[in-house]
């Protein structure tokens, strides 16, 4: 191991933990108004959508089809994550083979 690499790793570790901890730190000091409450309630779904949507778009038509079928299974089997995961990957691969 050499020094610049260790320095980079240490810096990455510090900033990453800082981003994790600061959500808790900020939340503990935040004065929550009813308006902010509405924003905070909407936040979890909005974060998850923002993680998923670009990944689906990047996967093109197979991605869109697989996402649609996965969503159907997920709504039917509310709470199950294993079946939608397998279905999603299977549909993606099948559509890729076809087109």
């Amino acid at each position, binding site marked *: *191991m050499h020094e*610049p*690499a*260790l*320095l*980079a*790793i*240490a810096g*990455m*570790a510090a900033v*990453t*933990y*800082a*981003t*994790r*901890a600061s*959500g*808790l730190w*900020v939340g*503990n000091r935040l004065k929550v108004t*009813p308006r902010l*409450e*509405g*924003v*905070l*309630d*909407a*936040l*979890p*779904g*909005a*974060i*998850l*959508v*923002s*993680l*998923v*949507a*670009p*990944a*689906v*778009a*990047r*996967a093109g038509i197979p*991605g869109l089809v697989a*996402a649609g079928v996965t*969503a159907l299974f*997920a*709504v039917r089997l509310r*709470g199950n*994550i*294993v079946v*939608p*995961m397998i279905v*999603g*990957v*299977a549909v*993606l*691969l099948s559509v*890729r083979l076809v087109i």
Partner: protein
Amino acid sequence: MAERRRRGRQGRPSDQPRLPFTTQGLRRGARLALPVGVSTVAFGLVFGVLARRVGLSAGEVCLMSALVFTGSGQAVAIGMWATPIPVVPIVATTLLIGLRHVLMGLTLQPWYARLPAPRAYACYFLLTDESWALTTVEFDRDRADGGVLVGAGAVLFALWVSSSTVGRVIGAAIRDPSAWGLEFALVAVFIALLASLARGRSTVLPWALAASVAVAAEWWLPGAWYVLLGALAGSIPGLVRHA
């Protein structure tokens, strides 16, 4: 969840009942993380291979995975790795990619504020996209147990550290997981978790906004702004709803 959060915010956190933190919670988190772990292992192996190509030793890969523990940030850092190592740009980019964790940590704060601070801050080391998403859905179902985040995070941590190190050691023998569609496994899990958070029509507009802004930002903006911008766009309708 909204009701629970409102209750949690009345008075000081220390006046609220403690957040349960049980062995069952730890086990439940670990079990929930196993299917997600498939994509963690696939991604970890590929990360290890890429890290080998840019000249990281197995020890450096292991150390980075254990201390930094963030797939997307580490992958981008490896893409920037060169001789001499551009330390400041790498750290700055890692910070930018990690900013979404601030929002994630904020959404779990009403629960973790009800643990002793040192323990809460320790739990947050294991906050990743995956452990956060699984915990969020558990809390949304009124099964609040601080152990879920830790159980899920610990399993993903072990899988990430070991798979990235193995990838570094065995190198080019690993095939690209996109040939198996594995990069979509995590996307499918997140879609399944979204189905649990859906609240009928009231979620259509915020989620459509979040999706459009995130896709547009990922397309046109350099860097990793898309999660932040999409998340903020999707929560703005909340301002109006509660006004």
